[in-house]
């Protein structure tokens, strides 16, 4: 106990030096904690928004066109190579549970009661809701009968409902007539809001209609903009992609990859690409924290050597009044252990504050990783002690006779 008090007093007396020795550990811990939390939070948020857009990662996206089609596909920017029959054939593959058909456009004006709006118009197959993980807020989805009869019925996303029917309460759109271009449709439901996708654009600014209706009564196109194929076994992406690729090459008479007139996308690969930014942030954070820790180690070793050589007389005197080598070693190790512990505590506190501030600034919930933080703090203490070992050993080996020579 008295050793601890006296070690604390020694540290307090050399306040500046103690600060210099602990600064690196404090900064390293705080920086590491904050940046890894920031990157974890942004990674989680990005992943959530990608997942929000796609509904599930256990799918393959099949798009027409062999080149690297960029951006959102629509009827105006894809070649007419992906057919309804292709979709049926894909759905029949052993690795595929079901396939949803999509025919979409972004340039259709929608009008209701004198108001116009230009949302995305999606012609979708009857399994769309299931595949996307979408839910109806009210009304009903397209029945098989409606799909067959190419019924002119529509389901509105939350943004569209709000834009076209701003008055009359939340249920105002149900049963109303709207026009898509020149074709009249009847609203039979509203989708539950999905919120934002990656980049923050709204996922609720869309109208769903039956894909059969879209193809024959609105767009007059017999090709698809996308087929979403759901895996039979979640995670079995590679095998499913191989099957789809083989099938489409066969159907489209493409003998080599260069002649492919379709593009397959693995959504989890997209997610990985999108989250790469936050991973890079994590790497930078780890690097910065590691740099600070390395500087801390150098500072501790250097300043402890300095301290030991400055305190030679003290060491000699303590030896003369009865200190063993072991107790001198213990004294210096206790000092550095206490200093490292205080630094680790301060680092944890500062890191916690950093995480809190960063989460406010990111507008994301903070990612607390206390077990990892405490493990890092413990490692910092061990590092401090390890750095102090050689100087402390040197102190213990100091010849008292030489140290006390006047």
């Amino acid at each position, binding site marked *: 106990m008295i050793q601890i008090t006296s070690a604390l007093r020694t540290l307090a007396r050399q306040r500046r030096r103690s600060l210099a020795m602990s600064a690196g550990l404090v900064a390293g811990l705080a920086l590491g904690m904050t940046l890894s939390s920031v990157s974890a939070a942004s990674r989680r948020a990005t992943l959530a928004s990608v997942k929000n857009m796609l509904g599930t990662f256990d799918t393959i996206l099949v798009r027409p066109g062999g080149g690297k089609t960029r951006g959102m596909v629509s009827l105006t920017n894809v070649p007419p190579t992906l057919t309804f029959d292709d979709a049926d054939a894909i759905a029949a593959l052993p690795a595929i549970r079901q396939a949803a058909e999509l025919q979409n456009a972004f340039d259709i004006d929608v009008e209701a009661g004198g108001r116009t709006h230009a949302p995305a118009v999606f012609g979708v197959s009857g399994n769309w809701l299931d595949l996307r993980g979408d839910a109806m807020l009210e009304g009903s989805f397209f029945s098989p009968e409606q799909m067959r009869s190419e019924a002119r019925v529509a389901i509105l996303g939350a943004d569209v409902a709000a834009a076209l029917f701003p008055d009359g309460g939340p249920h105002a759109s149900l049963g109303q007539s709207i026009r898509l271009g020149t074709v009249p449709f009847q609203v039979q439901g509203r989708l539950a809001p999905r919120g934002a996708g990656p980049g923050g654009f709204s996922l609720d600014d869309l109208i769903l209609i039956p894909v059969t209706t879209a193809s024959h009564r609105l767009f007059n196109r017999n090709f698809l903009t996308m087929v979403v194929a759901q895996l039979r076994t979640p995670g079995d992406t590679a095998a499913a992609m191989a099957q789809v690729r083989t099938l489409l090459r066969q159907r489209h008479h493409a003998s080599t990859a260069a002649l492919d007139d379709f593009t397959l996308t693995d959504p989890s690969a997209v997610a990985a690409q999108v989250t790469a930014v936050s991973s890079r942030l994590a790497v930078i954070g780890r690097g910065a924290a590691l740099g600070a820790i390395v500087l801390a180690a150098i500072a501790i070793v250097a300043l402890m050597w300095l301290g030991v050589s400055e305190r030679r007389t003290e060491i000699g005197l303590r030896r*003369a009044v009865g200190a063993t080598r072991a107790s001198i070693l213990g004294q210096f190790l206790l000092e550095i252990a206490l200093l490292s512990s205080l630094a680790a505590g301060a680092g944890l506190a500062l890191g916690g504050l950093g995480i809190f501030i960063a989460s406010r600034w990111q507008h994301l919930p903070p990612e607390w990783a206390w077990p990892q933080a405490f493990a890092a703090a413990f490692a910092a203490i061990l590092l401090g002690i390890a750095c102090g070992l050689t100087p402390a050993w040197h102190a213990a080996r100091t010849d008292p006779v030489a140290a006390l020579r006047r």
Partner: protein
Amino acid sequence: MIELDQLSKTFDGNAGKPVRALQGIELRIASGAMVAIRGASGSGKSSLLNILGCLDRPTAGRYRFEGHDVAGATDRQLSRLRARRIGFIFQSFHLLDRITALEQVELPALYAGVRGAATRARARDLLSRVGLAARLRHYPSQLSGGEQQRVAVARALMNDPSLILADEPTGNLDAASGAEVMALLAELHHEGRTVILVTHDESVARRAERQVLLRDGKMENPAA
């Protein structure tokens, strides 16, 4: 109490040439004696004192202190002897910079494994005894040389040692302060403690019952 037989100390000098600091020292010092070790600087008197104080080991020969063979003792055993049986007083006081007089005096108790309120009370008593009752909370920089050396004397007495070793205790003091410190040492001798002091000052040496003269590492009055 102290028996030295054919004791030698050799240091590694410059250019690998060994320096023979002490050669063939034969010395008996009885318990309760007051002895002055005299000699010019470089005569080996400090080396002898360091060995007597168990801070250093002889290169050859035998040193028995209160029956313990010092040459063969471990660091732990020697440290225990220094803590409980020996008190040091140095020419340059060697007080620690930033602790109070009271804490200086308490320090040896830490290494003797003694702790508690009794330690503080004893340190206070010892400082009163050396005339520093009013200086308990003072730091070395706030004390005169004479006062610092008296703190050092109190510190040497903390664990009630049987042997007091003083290395030029008056060397850095004015005449008056030096006389005070010498009076304290004489008092310790009269209490029955063994006092050995190293000095090159003949007037200081005369305060001892017996003088040991060293020249070039050898005793000049071996029979004494």
